[in-house]
């Protein structure tokens, strides 16, 4: 049952059409940022207004929505976005990665490989990968037009010269389809390889910055690196304290005031599925 007085999925139809046209052009030009008229949403910038507008424009009654915030289904941001769409679109939601048709994410890609029947929607705070290197939007637009990404290579090289390695653990820049430099949103560099040749469509929405971009399925996504300093996804060299996974991305928890640390899976659904699996096998 949807909230009375709202259009299906909150946005009016003219706004959805505008966003849908932007999404189609984004898919046709992989990695290119498309400006769109982001609307004011009933939650503040920084809470995923771009991702919500993309989700609202693609969502239908048959969809099953999963929302994660840093891998977790039960954090404030994820819970409130899920409840928002339950209220304004009356759609089904889930925590299980495999059951979702649309997954809206803040800063993670689920551990379970996505399928062709799924769409991954990223919430993006800063869509411009060159933002910290060149503050003028007019200039970065020209750099993208010329595919001139020397600035970013120099930035990575300076890390190597000073520190001996590329000191970027998240929002690690990628080349999409060997044409556009793209911000993968602040996902950990650990997740970057999952974007490469992913079976699912990936859509990115930045509400405050009013940009939409996309990576179509089965598209080359290469993390920038150098021949002698190849890209290495970073992961804490521990096993999950709950499920024992040695391959998933881990969050570090402070457990006491005496330096105690624990590492647990960032993807809560993946962790719970692994916890349930040995029990199911035993029964």
């Amino acid at each position: 049952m949807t909230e009375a007085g709202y259009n299906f999925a909150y946005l009016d139809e003219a706004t959805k059409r505008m966003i849908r046209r932007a999404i189609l052009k984004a898919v046709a030009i992989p990695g290119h940022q498309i400006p769109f008229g982001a609307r004011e949403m009933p939650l503040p910038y920084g809470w995923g207004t771009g991702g919500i507008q993309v989700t609202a424009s693609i969502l239908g009654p048959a969809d099953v929505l999963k929302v994660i915030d840093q891998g977790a289904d039960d954090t404030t941001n994820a819970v409130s976005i899920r409840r928002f769409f339950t209220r304004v679109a009356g759609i089904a939601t889930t925590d299980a990665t495999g059951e979702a048709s649309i997954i809206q994410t803040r800063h993670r890609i689920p551990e379970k490989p996505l399928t062709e029947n799924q769409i991954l929607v990223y919430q993006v705070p800063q869509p411009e990968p060159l933002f910290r290197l060149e503050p003028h939007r007019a200039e970065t637009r020209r750099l993208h037009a010329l595919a001139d990404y020397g600035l970013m290579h120099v930035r990575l090289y300076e890390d190597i010269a000073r520190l001996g390695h590329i000191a970027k653990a998240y929002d690690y820049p990628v080349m999409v389809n060997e044409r556009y430099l793209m911000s993968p949103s602040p996902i950990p560099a650990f997740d970057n390889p999952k974007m490469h040749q992913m079976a699912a469509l990936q859509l990115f929405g930045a509400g405050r910055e009013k940009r939409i971009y996309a990576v179509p399925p089965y598209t080359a996504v290469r993390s920038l690196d150098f021949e002698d300093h190849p890209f290495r996804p970073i992961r804490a060299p521990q096993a999950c304290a709950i499920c024992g996974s040695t391959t998933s991305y881990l969050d570090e928890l402070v457990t006491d005031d005496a330096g105690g640390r624990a590492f647990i899976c960032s993807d809560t659904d993946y962790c719970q599925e692994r916890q349930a699996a040995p029990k199911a096998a035993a029964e």
Partner: protein
Amino acid sequence: MKQLTPGFADPVLDAQACFRAILEAMSRPGRIQRIAAHITPPAPLCTAAGAALLSLADADTPLWLDTDEAVAAWLRFHCGAPITGDIGAARFVLSCGPAPSLAALDIGTDEDPQLGATLILQVAGLIADEGWRLTGPGIQHEHHLRVLGAPADFVSAWARNQALFPRGVDVLLCAGDSIAALPRSVMIAEG
């Protein structure tokens, strides 16, 4: 005055379902999608082309078309799209007869390639898994698509369009209730 046929029975959910079919078509070039909505646009406009315009065109998108006044009146009423005689200024170009040259359409600029037009090309039929060999983003290995009634020189015209990337024109191929897409990133070889 002739009676206009209705547009979508459910303007919200029919437009959503149609958009998702187009999004799927655009994401996986050459895969054929079906438009489920039941509409009866005036001839010669087919269901898929009519539904695509109902879903995507509005007052913000100048439309060029090569059909008669009945189709223009239908689209003007249901979409509110301004109809232009200047093909280079149109966001959507509807072709039901002989296809216009891709080079005549707006291809956008290097900084704003998204301004490139979308050509809605009505063809005689679409057959999957034979014909043209498509490769590029959205395609794991290769997709095959046979387009019945495609313009004779389309593959070479497409190669010129594709060479402009990221500028260029995107094409929606429509036949009956079937739709397939050729985003500008896709490469076509004669199969």
